[in-house]
């Protein structure tokens, strides 16, 4: 019996593989025939006409056949053991290497404006990446630490952006006054959202936050007299160097420091500004994790009922998570408004929330380094594959599903408790 089992495991499972592949190909035929094989186009008369694309269809089905065949041949029918394939010694090496990764990344980030001073494109990309790093870290407080799935995070980003834009254009307040105000307003909205969802379970909460995000966007879109509607708000004041504007004029930044005026000064300043804001987010998060509230967040993420029975006030715990996460979203929003000089509801769609969530999820919920790396990889990837723009969201949806299947806690997962009883276990 055992002999037989050993023999059958040695011979390649050709027959089951063939069977699986045929089935998969049949399913693929059903899925793709109408969607891929035929395409509807508006003809010259305006009516829809059908064109055929049977080559693409046949190729996809063949691809599915081959993929399914190889999968069963190599891995069998069970789940693909990806996580277990990494030997523990290698995992330890990676872990120890990642200890140097954070400082290395930080130093690199600090040096970017020096290294790429001439490359405006890279600086702008750096600012974009850092904005998403900051948003990711902000959302990480809510999703990664407190375990509350928030699908409407972009609402707070929008609140921050519109707060700054409106305060600055109507009351001519400076960026440095608006920044805390925008943060407070966003935090206020966070609490406002937090109240109704306190009693909800994880997945209800996700949908409610999604609805909330959409409500904010629709109000911004339709409240013409206040927000400018779909036209948005333009000519938002640009940031100044603590009161010194970036311009080719007397009393400007370059004039005060005796430098030759260059538009790059502002970009470099913006870069360090967002870097500072992002690092602030990171620092606050790291400190909060060591405080009782941070520990309560993580405990709540793991088991809410146990948390309640141990006397943790889950109401305040959830509200603080929402408020603090929202506040950093608001900061990032203000920064976005001052950098762009123009905002409209277009920038605050669900897609944006999904992108930030994907960064947190792929990076590893609760892991600061993972989120930063994920933001860098994703936005860098988007730029690299610009010509495949159409496909990037598709890839990114697949990445979300596959990561959940293989490493549900994210690529760099830090689920290890920040507090140990007795010896620290490895």
């Amino acid at each position, binding site marked *: 019996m055992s002999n037989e089992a050993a023999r059958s495991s040695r011979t390649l499972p050709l027959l089951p593989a063939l069977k699986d592949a045929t089935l998969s190909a049949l399913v693929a035929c059903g899925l793709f025939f109408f969607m891929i094989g035929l395409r509807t186009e508006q003809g010259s008369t305006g009516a829809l006409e059908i064109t055929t694309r049977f080559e693409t269809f046949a190729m996809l089905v063949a691809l599915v056949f081959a993929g399914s065949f190889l999968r069963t041949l190599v891995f069998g029918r069970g789940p693909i053991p990806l996580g277990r394939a990494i030997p523990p010694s290698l995992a330890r090496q990676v872990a120890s290497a990642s200890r140097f990764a954070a400082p290395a990344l930080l130093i690199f980030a600090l040096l970017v404006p020096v290294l790429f001073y001439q490359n405006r494109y890279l600086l702008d990309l750096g600012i974009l990446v850092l904005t998403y790093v900051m948003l990711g870290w902000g959302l990480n407080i809510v999703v990664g630490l407190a375990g509350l799935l928030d699908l409407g995070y972009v609402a707070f980003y929008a609140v921050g952006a519109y707060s700054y834009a409106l305060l600055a254009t109507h009351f001519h307040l400076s960026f440095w006054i608006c920044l805390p105000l925008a943060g407070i307003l966003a935090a206020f909205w966070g609490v406002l959202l937090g109240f109704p969802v306190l009693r909800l379970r994880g*997945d209800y909460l996700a949908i409610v936050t999604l609805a909330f995000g959409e409500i904010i966007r629709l109000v911004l879109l339709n409240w013409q007299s206040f927000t400018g509607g779909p036209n948005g708000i333009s000519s938002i004041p640009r940031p100044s160097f603590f009161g010194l504007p970036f311009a080719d004029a007397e009393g400007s930044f370059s004039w005060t420091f005796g430098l030759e005026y260059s538009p790059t000064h502002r970009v470099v300043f913006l870069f360090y500004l967002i870097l500072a804001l992002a690092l602030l987010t990171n620092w606050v998060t790291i400190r909060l994790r060591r405080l009782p509230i941070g520990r309560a967040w993580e405990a709540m993420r793991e088991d809410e009922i146990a948390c309640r029975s141990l006397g943790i006030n889950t109401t305040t715990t959830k509200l603080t998570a929402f408020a603090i996460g929202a506040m950093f979203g608001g900061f990032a929003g203000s920064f976005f408004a001052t950098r762009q000089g123009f905002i409209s509801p277009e920038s605050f769609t669900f897609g944006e929330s999904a992108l930030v969530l994907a960064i947190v999820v792929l990076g590893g919920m609760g892991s600061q380094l993972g989120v930063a790396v994920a933001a860098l990889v994703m936005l860098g990837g988007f730029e690299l594959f610009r010509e495949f723009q159409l496909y990037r969201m598709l890839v990114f949806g697949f990445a979300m*599903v596959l990561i959940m299947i293989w490493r549900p806690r994210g690529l760099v997962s830090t689920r290890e408790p920040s507090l140990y009883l007795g010896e620290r276990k490895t």
Partner: protein
Amino acid sequence: MEYFVQQLIIGITLGSIYGLIAIGYTMVYGIIGMINFAHGDVFMVGGFIALIAFLALLAIGVTSIPIALFLVLLIAMALTALYGWTVERFAYRPLRHSYRLAPLISAIGMSIILQNYVQIAQGARVKPLPPIVTGSHTLMSSDGFDVELSNIQIIVVLTTVALMVSFSWLVAKTRLGRDMRACEQDLKMASLLGVNIDRTISLTFVIGAALASVAGIMYLLYYGVIDFYIGFVAGVKAFTAAVLGGIGSLPGAMLGGLLIGLIETFWSAYFSIEYKDVAAFSILIVVLIFLPTGILGRPEVEKV
């Protein structure tokens, strides 16, 4: 009065479509306790398959509208059901024993996949379809305002009622329905008693997707346009309907769908059309605060 009746008719039609989608949410939630975030997009896929199938049938020379519509219904239901099955098999089944946020995130990923897949495959432009079912009956008339009941509205409501009746029968009387109810009560116990839970869950997704595809066809016939993004908003509204009616309850889903359809229509008619989505989304939040179990739902007992 005439205006009111007209809005009532529109609201009931819209509510039927939401109700059909809501059933998919409520069934899946009842059995495995997850929100199938991609369900709205499955509805959209159903609409697209129906559109393409209809055009293809016209192209190969099926000109009789009733026959074409019947074939489209069969094709769309079968193929959308296949999509539902694939989604479950690929994105949800491997995660059944994972931690609680994983299936939801996977579902969001799946939703993004479906939207972009359709966008790539069929283009991002809005697809218009000339009216297929025309004709209407004037019910009331005064001061030059006619209350119209169009044939398509009759078809939508009748189809929904027929599907609801047959589906209720399926859940109440058949072997599959019994398995589904058993899984809803206790998945582990059901599997111990010999219910094939993998098969039951798969079939739940298949049925939900088939019903959503009917909703997709109705949407297509009723509005005459479709694009890859309709699933998102319709999905959230249908989910609201499911929650309002009491998630896990089938009559609740239908009732919630009707209510949401009516509220949305009357809101657009009497207040402002711009804020109709805001009204629907606000209801979701308000219901969850004051009536978390919905109208016909049972209170959820938290088990440790």
